[in-house]
């Protein structure tokens, strides 16, 4: 097991390096100077500009710049935000917990919806329930998150006036009330993201269960006289969920995409809305760092899925 863990960790390193190469290539291929801000600022005299370029090594060969950029990123030196006038890593660390909270709760909601619905539908394939669940799943992942977000705001904030539609991190309340306000404002964003993810996950769970339910050992379990409930919960679901773990991890890139949109709609102060506002404000260091953080999170979740997979499935060889 330890061997397997080390191996997985070693596999994650080249993919992180590959992602960093892609990101840096995009930046290096980009026309114009990413640090144009300094060049176009009339208060910076040309001599200072040249000195700055030499200091930051902007005219060095690409390879040298890449290595320097990578070591700086690894050391946590992510640069200085032009707009917020603070270090990028502090800025991102302030925003990251909110994003992880929203994404995490959405993922929990998605799993909580998808597993029961998917299993129940697969246990009775082509029944009325299965067909309704299938159609609703199609509707769910065809509804873009930005539209469901607006629909929920329209219904629950504008017409019913039940929920706030602006997410605030500074709630002036204490004790239970503070928690309650937090739950209330997180309800809509989490529902939007969670139901979108849950829809596609339901279909994966259903097909995974259908693959397992035809196997001989399930017939044996039924032949032993076990109740249908025990057969499904203890024998079928345990095996069927192993591939689902991988799928949850593989969907992480899509979830980050959805998180950027929901954060923008509900004005959640996470790193997704930070990305959008930095793009609108031409704040290159922040944009690069946020994209890098998203990429690292994806690799991290893939790694976690691999490890979970090895732990859940004893048939995997730990080599």
């Amino acid at each position, binding site marked *: 097991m330890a061997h397997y863990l080390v191996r997985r960790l070693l596999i994650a390193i080249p*993919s992180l390096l*590959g*992602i960093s190469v*892609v*990101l840096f290539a*995009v*930046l290096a291929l*980009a*026309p*114009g100077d*990413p640090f144009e801000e300094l060049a176009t600022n009339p208060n910076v005299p040309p001599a200072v500009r040249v000195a700055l370029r030499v200091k930051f090594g902007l005219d060095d060969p690409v390879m040298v710049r890449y290595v320097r950029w990578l070591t700086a990123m690894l050391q946590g030196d992510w640069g200085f935000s032009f707009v917020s006038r603070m270090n990028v890593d502090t800025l991102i660390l302030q925003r990251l917990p909110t994003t992880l909270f929203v994404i995490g709760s959405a993922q929990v909601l998605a799993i909580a919806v998808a597993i029961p619905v998917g299993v129940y539908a697969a246990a009775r*394939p*082509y029944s009325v329930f299965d067909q309704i669940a299938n*159609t609703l799943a*199609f*509707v769910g*992942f*065809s*509804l*873009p*998150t*930005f*539209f469901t977000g*607006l*629909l929920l*705001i*329209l219904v629950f904030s*504008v017409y019913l006036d039940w929920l706030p539609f602006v997410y605030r991190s500074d709630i002036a309340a204490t004790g239970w009330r503070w928690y309650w306000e937090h739950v209330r404002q997180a309800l809509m964003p989490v529902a939007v993201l969670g139901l979108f993810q849950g829809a596609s996950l339901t279909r994966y769970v259903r097909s995974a269960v*259908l693959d397992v*339910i*035809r196997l001989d050992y*399930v*017939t044996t379990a*039924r032949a032993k006289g076990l109740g249908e409930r025990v057969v499904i919960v203890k024998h079928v679901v345990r095996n069927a969920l192993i591939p689902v773990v991988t799928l949850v991890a*593989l969907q992480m*890139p*899509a979830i*980050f*995409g959805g998180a*950027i*949109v929901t954060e*923008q*709609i509900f004005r959640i102060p996470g790193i997704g809305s930070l*990305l*959008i506002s930095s*793009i*609108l404000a*031409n704040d290159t260091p922040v*944009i*690069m760092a*946020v*994209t890098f953080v*998203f*990429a690292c*999170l*994806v*690799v991290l979740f*893939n790694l976690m899925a691999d490890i979970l997979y090895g732990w859940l499935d004893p048939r995997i060889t730990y080599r």
Partner: protein
Amino acid sequence: MVGSIHASPTAEAQAQPVARGRGRRYSPALEAWRRFRRHRLAVASGVILAVIVAAIVVGPQLWNVPINEIDFAARLEGPSWRHPFGTDDLGQDLLARMIYGGRISLAVGIAAMVVAIVAGTVVGAIAGMSRGWLGSALMWLADLFLSLPQLPLLLLVIYLFRDTLKVLFGPEGGVFILIVFVIGALRWMPVARLVRAQFLSLREKEFVEAARALGASTTRQVVRHILPNALGPVIVAGTIDVAAAIIAESTLSFLGLGFPPDIPTWGRILYDAKDYLDIAPHWALFPGAAIFLVVLSINFIGDGLRDTLDPRRVM
């Protein structure tokens, strides 16, 4: 119960149509249509999509209201006979704007799908035919691209490149080319993996071996013998890619980073409408419903095609 679960609900009825179908004319296309017809939701979706596409294509001839005619007297009006979909905050007619936006959304979707399919098929075919390191290297690349966070990267590329392309191809053309290529470049991986998997099994089949024995070159083997047999899953993936590309384009426009503000794509109309949700909900509902309907029907058609083109499926 256990052994009786079939790959499709109609599996048991297979003996009948064969007996009845004897003596009838038969062709692969006819057979495909017969299978596709079984998927009722897919057929209904086909009709809905055809209506929307027809409306978008011939719409400007029938509804010749200019998309940028400003009329402050008719600001934020709900649907009426003069403006069937209502008006926006400048009194511009929403129906005309949506017809125009639909053309862009569909064009982006189809063009991005073509880019993704062509790139994916080429990479997948090379990886599937090579027996050395090239195949695994290409698949490693595909895995790497799969683990990239797509939307952040899309936003990064558009942020870095849009100004140059705007200068080169004009404000609309530049953004169009950029969006199509970036969406296409981020969606070729599933196609490449599908094509490679098909190639790996097909290249060892007897009919390919026969072609090889007859002296067919590798190119001929691929183009004439292997590729036509590998196309089924690619068509399905292509259909779903159109939907994904439409969503990606609308998302970019919704974030205010897609097409310029004066080009009313569906996502852009939603972006403009979101600040007026309380007083003019129709402004957001029509474009949102249009995106939803198009994406939903494309997804259902893709599902129907999957049933149609899967030879293992008994129908």
